[in-house]
């Protein structure tokens, strides 16, 4: 057995990792909630954003500054991708959307591979090795920053969805697409805005991940599997579910890594995933499908 301090440290570390999972998952669940489709390009967009953040840093811009440029940029890219590629190509069929996003994901990942090779790249930031002392445990500064940024982003997103007209339109389309169209909401526009918001969240996640992680053309895959789990666990389309699910999975991963070792710790996530899908596919917080 481990000493309580080690277990508590593992839990806190898990929460920090979980916050980034939560951010990636909120983006996925938002898109699912409105478009009713799993976006298989999610991981590839995250990877692309991490490359963008990487090259911004190479050009001398810290990721925490670059985020203010990259988030709007990815919003525009996401908006365009949904409005001009995914939407028209799918002919309104869900199964087509699934395959188009898969095709985009293959395209983006391998275009990055062709352009930059499969090397693993890291960056050095001044705060890369700083720590935050909580008295009984030292926490790496980049991950504390990631945690804080996630909380801010989630709050902003919540305010956007609850307080603005755009947010109202998004929620209306999520609930009842036809009804929303009948009262004059431009559904194609709302789909694209939602997709853009998802991509912007991924850009933010990329900027806070990069200082303590690496970038490589397949790096998004690991996160996207976790995000699928979180989204299913939290209930597809439920933003609070994705937040809580993300933190929970972070802690589970950290603790199972502590008790079972790194490679089998990964297995824990998939077992939870399959059980959640089989036993309660509507998730812990999801509405009935």
């Amino acid at each position, binding site marked *: 057995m481990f000493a309580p301090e080690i277990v508590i440290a593992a839990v806190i570390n898990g929460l920090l990792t979980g916050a980034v999972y939560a951010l990636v998952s909120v983006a996925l669940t938002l898109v699912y909630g409105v478009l009713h489709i799993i976006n298989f390009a999610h991981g590839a967009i995250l990877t692309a954003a991490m490359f963008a953040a990487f090259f911004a840093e190479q050009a001398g811009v810290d990721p925490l500054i670059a985020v203010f440029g990259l988030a709007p940029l990815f919003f525009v890219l996401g908006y365009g991708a949904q409005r001009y590629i995914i939407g028209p190509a799918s002919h309104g069929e869900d199964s087509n959307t699934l*395959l188009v996003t898969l*095709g985009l994901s293959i395209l983006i990942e391998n275009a990055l591979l062709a352009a930059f090779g499969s090397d693993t790249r890291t960056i050095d930031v001044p705060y890369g090795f700083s720590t935050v002392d909580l008295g009984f445990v030292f926490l790496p500064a980049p991950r504390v920053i990631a945690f804080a940024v996630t909380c801010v982003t989630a709050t902003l997103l919540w305010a956007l969805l609850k307080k603005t007209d755009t947010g109202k339109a998004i929620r209306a389309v999520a609930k009842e697409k036809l009804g929303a169209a009948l009262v004059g909401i431009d559904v194609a526009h709302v789909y694209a805005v939602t997709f853009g918001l998802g991509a912007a969240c991924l850009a933010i996640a990329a900027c806070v991940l990069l200082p303590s992680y690496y970038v490589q053309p397949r790096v998004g895959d690991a996160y996207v599997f976790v995000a699928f789990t979180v989204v299913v666990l939290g209930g597809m389309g439920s933003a609070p579910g994705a937040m809580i699910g993300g933190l929970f999975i972070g802690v589970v991963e950290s603790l199972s890594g502590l008790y079972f070792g790194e490679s089998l710790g990964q297995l824990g996530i998939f077992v939870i995933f399959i059980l959640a899908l089989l036993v309660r*596919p509507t998730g812990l917080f999801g509405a009935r499908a």
Partner: protein
Amino acid sequence: MTVSGARGMFSAYAPILVVAALLALTPLATSANTVLNAMVLALLVALAGQGWNILGGYGGQFSFGHAAFFGTGAYGTALLQARYGLNAYVAFAAAIGAGAAVGAAIGFLSFRSGLRGSYFALVTLAFAEVFRIVANASPFTGGAAGTLLKLDVAPGNFQFASRAIFFWIALALVTLVLILTRAIERSRFGAYLVAIRENESAAQALGIDTFKVKLQAITLSAAVTAAAGAFYAQYFLYVNADIAYGAAVSVEALLAPIIGGLGTAFGPLIGTLALHGLAEGAKALTGRIPGIDVALYGALVVLVIAFAPKGLRGLAARLGRGLSTRWAS
């Protein structure tokens, strides 16, 4: 729909035999090992795609984890020979059975829970990943180092010096599944499957036992894809977790039928030949930049779904019709 009698039989199966006979001539046209090797690989992917097509194309259940079946076939044949010294042909058959059993188990769990659409795609993806992680960690499967088969070239060991023989065996398997698929198309089971794809609730209301039909479809689908995996292991005499259970396998198995034409017998074969032709062309033009061929696959998927939702086969049929109407007028 189905034309009965001898003429119907002829028009249904004759094209398959003609295509198979023409492809069988390839080794006579070239003896270059690289060409034959590429053809064997293409046929393997086509076979895996044919398996996917039974469940995904005809039944409308999009699996994103057919690697679970491919890998079970590959590891099955490799482990039964390497660990238990089984005869290669017996191991091959047993591996197909193991793949079918995995298919039935995953199908039972997923369909019993009523998973459809995105949910079914996700759960199959997760099962394949679980297999990959376990195969990568377990000493029984050789861990990350994988499992090697002993090189002992003899027809009795399912090992041949000539690639042409492997090519013909792969072609025979593909042809067999073409015939099987055509037979499914013409059967009551096939009609049930298509009914489920078009509208599952309606199919159920008409009294079709949708659970049973889907379960049969995934079992058959898994068996075919497992055969592709078993053949892979036998051809390369090596498997590891990323090759056998990697996501790339699942993606290739579903791309081929989608590009070629979902729910058509020839779709997977046409799709594979188109994809591999495109990849080889891209490699020749760009000088083997890694990833460029697969990036093109991705672009092609988007284009095909946007402009030819019925795949290349549907596109060809549409063009043919367009020409013939112009001819007539």
